[in-house]
Every structure is written in C-alpha cells, then in structure tokens.
C-alpha cells in the first residue's frame, strides 16, 4: 500500500512539475522579442499576409487563451504544428528522441566505465602516486566544460589523428533501412556490426565529450566512498578470511560504496542530457538538442515547447529510475 501511495504521489508531482515547466516556457518564449511569422514570410509580405498567418497559428489571441488551446491539444497528444518544418511537433520530437537517448546513454556508459575504473585504481593503489594521478586527472577533467572537451577531441581525433567521424550520426553511404530511429540498438539486434561500428565511430567523440566531466565526478565520489568503506569492520573481517585485495574491494566494499554515489550521478546525468544541446550542435549530430537550437533560431514556438516538455519529462524519468535503483540496491529499503 505504501508503494502504491508513493507511486501516486510521484505521478502527481511529475504532472505538476511538467505543468509548471509548460507554463514558464509558454510565457517566456512569447515575451522575448522575435516574431515567428515574420521569419516565415518572404521579404515584402503585406501586413494583411502577416495578420492572416498570425490568426492561423493563433498568435493573435491572448497568451492565456493560447495556453488553454495548446493544453487542450496536449491532453489529446497533439502538441501543435511546427512552424518552420510544417509537421506535427509530437512526430518531429519523438523522431529525434532516440538519437539523443542513444548518445546520452552511451555517454553515461563511458562515464561509468572511465570513472569507475579510476575510482577502483585510486582505491587499489591508495596513498600512492597512482591515487594522486587519479585526483589530478579528475580535477582537470572537471575544470573544463563538455563543449570545450568536444573541441579538444575534434582537434585530437578529427584533425591530428583522424580516426573518428567529426559530424553526423551515420555515414550516408551505408546500405541499411531502419524501421526505428534507435539506430544503434537496431543495428545491434540485427547483428549488422559494420553499421554498429560506423554509428559508434560517429558517436564516440560527442559521447566522450559529454562523459568526461561526469566520469570525473564519479571517480571522485566513488573513490571517496570506497575509501571510507574500506575501513569498516566487515571489510576487515573479509580480509581475515583469506580474501585478497581485489575481492575485498570489488565484492565487499564496492556494492555498498556505490549507494551514496548513485543519487548524485543521477542528478549529474540530467545535466549531461542538457549538455547534448550544444554537443549535438558541435558535432552536427541529428538529435533533439540540435533540433532545439534550430527551433530557437527560427522562433518555432510550438517546437520549442514540445522539446522543452520532453526534456523535462526525461529528467523526471531519470530521477525516478535513480530512486528505484537505490531501493533495489539497498536491502534496508527493500522491505519498507
């Protein structure tokens, strides 16, 4: 019963949050200067033309009225029509979502692998130069934002030593028809490893740029947490049983040390998703973030709204998954 109540509360807070986000975005993008209609029309269009289009998109009504109309559509799954692309917003946004999801999850995977390895090395070789090297590397990685890492990577692996693709999501020359927009996932399922390799070749640098700061945070937090756990009595007891250092770290300390790191990584992952906006632009990666920048440039109000709502929904989902993981991994909460 407690579980059911929790889920219900969660659902309500999510809806309230999304509603709040919708209101703010709706108002802000209509208050800032820039007329979407004027940008659509060729130079020399008459005032009458402008007024006609304004009415067609409902921009002649008050913000409140516009919002009510928009909300009425949303409730039925209709997020309106993109002004610049002339297609339903829902269709456009959901079409791009898989690209951004794949990129973000790849970045998360990289961050966990790199950060986790660094934390483990720092713990295994604690109080030595290796631990110092881990600290310095993590500190440096954190002091540079993801888009600058993107530029550094382009210089390294795109120009000096060109091994990865610097733009796009997939090579146009590849002979494959996708049935979904989850290219990487689909290619894996269909065992088209040539395509997988091409996709990863495109994804590698943007994903790594997004991953580096998060990897540094994971390295620092997890190492600290591991270090504290290594002193606990049950770890010492495991040592007396004849277990070696590797077992003690990986099997006794790590599962418990992960818990305090998890919540923060969840929050940081939502920042990473936010980072896709600039990184996708930098690498011409055809995802939601790249579309968001075009939408802003074109003052495509319905599209901006749709994208922001989707991002907000994504963040809420990430937090939900983190909370669930925390319960699953922590036996003390499992029976509550």
């Amino acid at each position: 019963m407690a579980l059911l109540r929790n889920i219900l509360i969660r659902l309500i807070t999510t809806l309230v949050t999304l509603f709040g986000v919708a209101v703010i975005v709706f108002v802000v993008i209509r208050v800032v200067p820039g007329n979407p209609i004027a940008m659509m029309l060729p130079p020399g269009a008459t005032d009458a033309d402008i007024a006609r289009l304004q009415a067609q998109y409902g921009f002649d009504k008050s913000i409140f009225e516009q919002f009510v109309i928009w909300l009425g559509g949303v409730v039925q799954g209709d997020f309106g029509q993109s002004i610049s692309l002339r297609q339903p917003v829902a269709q456009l946004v959901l079409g791009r979502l898989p690209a951004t999801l794949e990129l973000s999850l790849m970045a998360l995977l990289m961050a966990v692998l790199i950060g986790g390895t660094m934390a483990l090395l720092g713990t295994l070789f604690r109080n030595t130069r290796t631990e110092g090297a881990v600290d310095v590397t993590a500190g440096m990685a954190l002091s540079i934002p993801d888009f600058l890492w993107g530029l550094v990577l382009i210089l390294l692996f795109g120009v000096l030593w060109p091994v990865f693709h610097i733009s796009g999501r997939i090579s146009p020359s590849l002979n494959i028809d996708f049935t979904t927009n989850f290219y990487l996932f689909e290619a894996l399922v269909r065992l088209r490893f040539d395509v997988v390799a091409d996709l990863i070749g495109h994804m590698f640098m943007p994903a790594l740029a997004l991953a580096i700061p998060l990897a540094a945070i994971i390295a620092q937090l997890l190492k600290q947490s591991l270090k504290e756990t290594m002193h606990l009595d049950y770890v010492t007891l495991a040592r007396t049983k004849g277990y070696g250092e590797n077992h003690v770290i990986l099997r006794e300390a790590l599962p418990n040390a992960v818990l305090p790191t998890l919540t923060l990584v969840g929050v940081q992952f939502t920042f990473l998703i936010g980072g896709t906006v600039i990184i996708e632009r930098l690498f011409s990666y055809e995802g939601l973030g790249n579309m968001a920048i075009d939408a802003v440039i074109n003052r495509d109000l319905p599209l901006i709204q749709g994208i922001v709502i989707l991002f907000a929904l994504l963040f809420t989902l990430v937090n939900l998954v983190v909370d669930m993981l925390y319960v699953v991994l922590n036996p003390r909460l499992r029976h509550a």
Partner: protein
Amino acid sequence: MSGFLSIRNLTVHLRGGGPILRAVTMDVAPGQVHGLVGESGAGKSMIGKAVLGTLPRALEITGGEIWLDGVDLLALAPAARRKQIGATAALIPQDPLTALNPGKRIGPQITRRLVDILGWRKSDAEARARDLLDEVHIPDPVRVMRSYPHELSGGMRQRILIASAFAAEPRLIIADEPTTALDVTVQKQILRLISDMQTRHGTALLFVTHDLGVVSKVCDTLSVLYAGKVVENARMRRFFMRPIHPYSAALLAATPIYTDPDRGLTPVPQTVIDAVEREVEHHDVRAGA
C-alpha cells in the same frame, strides 16, 4: 616455541613515528584460552590485527616474529600469509553491528568463503552454516540465513559472527572485546557461548579484554599489556595468587571480583604508573628505538 600462536619480540611503529607495540612476546597454547588484558589504548587490538594481517596502513611491523601453527607469518609473501591466516585463524570482532556486510544476506556471509577459498560444495557449506547457527542457539537458522543484518538484533548478530568464526574449524580464534558493544544482559550469555564453543571445538582462543574479571572466568593463561609492552605473562592461578609485576598487582586490586566489596576499589596508584612508565621507556632506550 611453545605456542600454537607464538609472538616473539613483535615491534610495531607508527609509520615514521613512535612505537605502538614494544617487543611483545606471548604464547597461546593449542586448545587453551589466553587472556590479553590492559587498559584502553594499550595496544591489545593491534596485537590481534598484526597476527591477522589487518593492521591499519598507518602502522608497520618493524621487528619480531609471529609463528602460527609452526610457520613464521612475517617470513611469508603476502598472498601465502593471507592463505595461512585464513586457513588457521579467525576473528570474533568487537562490534557486531558493523562487522556484517549490510548489503548481503547472512547465509552467504558464512558460506561464501568456505566455497570460494576452501573449495567446499555449496550444499555442504550451507548445511555447515545451519548446524553452527543451531549450535549458537539461533532459532530458525534457515530463515536467519535469508535475512539481512539490519533485520537482526545485536546479540543475534554476535552469535552469527561467532558461528561464522568457527565455520572453517580454525585452530585459533581471536576475540577482540567481543561483548563490550553489547547489552549487559546479553554480555554474559555471549561470553558463556564463546567459552562453550571453544571447549567443544578445542580451539585455541586469544581473548582480548580490558576486564580482568572476565579473564578470571574463562582463561587458562594471560598477558598484561601496558603502553604496548607486555609486563607479565602468567598462568591464571599463579597470577591471581601472586602477581609479579607491580602494575599487575595494582590492576588486580582495581578489579571488583577480587576485592572485598566493602573496601571498595583501589585505583592503580600513581607510583605504580610512574614505575611502569620508566620501565617502558627504559626498554625503548635498550632497544635503540
């Protein structure tokens, strides 16, 4: 070399600092209970940790020998040392609330090492765990083995840790103040349980405590530790009748069980403290530390 565990001139220093243990020598005979007494901070736990290879990183062994079952542990490579310790000795820790992994069920915490390290079959290890939990009077062992530590009381957890310590039939068990963290009412039961288990399994026991009264009940021999130095090694009877070292005598006088209750307790006199301090310092000078 008379003991199953035989510590010879063991010296431990703070890395780049002063001495923590000063030429400690003591023996634990096979199947016997040896008490290790001394006030808090004397270095009792560090002796146990030195034997079990779990000294804090800030400390280092700077001299001496630790013979366990005829093998000098300090002459072994780390992996071989770990193996020798794991196969012959076990620890009953001080605080049952922190000595069990909060993320694992009780069953695997007892059985895993039997399977992983000693190569037992899983079913054998589980049967063994059930028997042992039975032996330490835990009701419904099967259910308890499926529980997580937080679902059990402190007394239960200490029983589980005792059972776990006996699981691989070690020939030496080190119990480091195994009752101090427990309720007074539970303390007696646990003490009794450890003593019974020791007798039944014929295990040698190094019993670490600051309480001479407890030692008098369970031990055959004892060592008195002061500021990292053993001031007296003795058999129990002789010690209580005729303590040789003035610090031992003073410690006895300060222990309720052997004092006339009407006379009250006599704290260790300052003159004795001063004398033993001089002796300890004198030792450092001799050892060139």
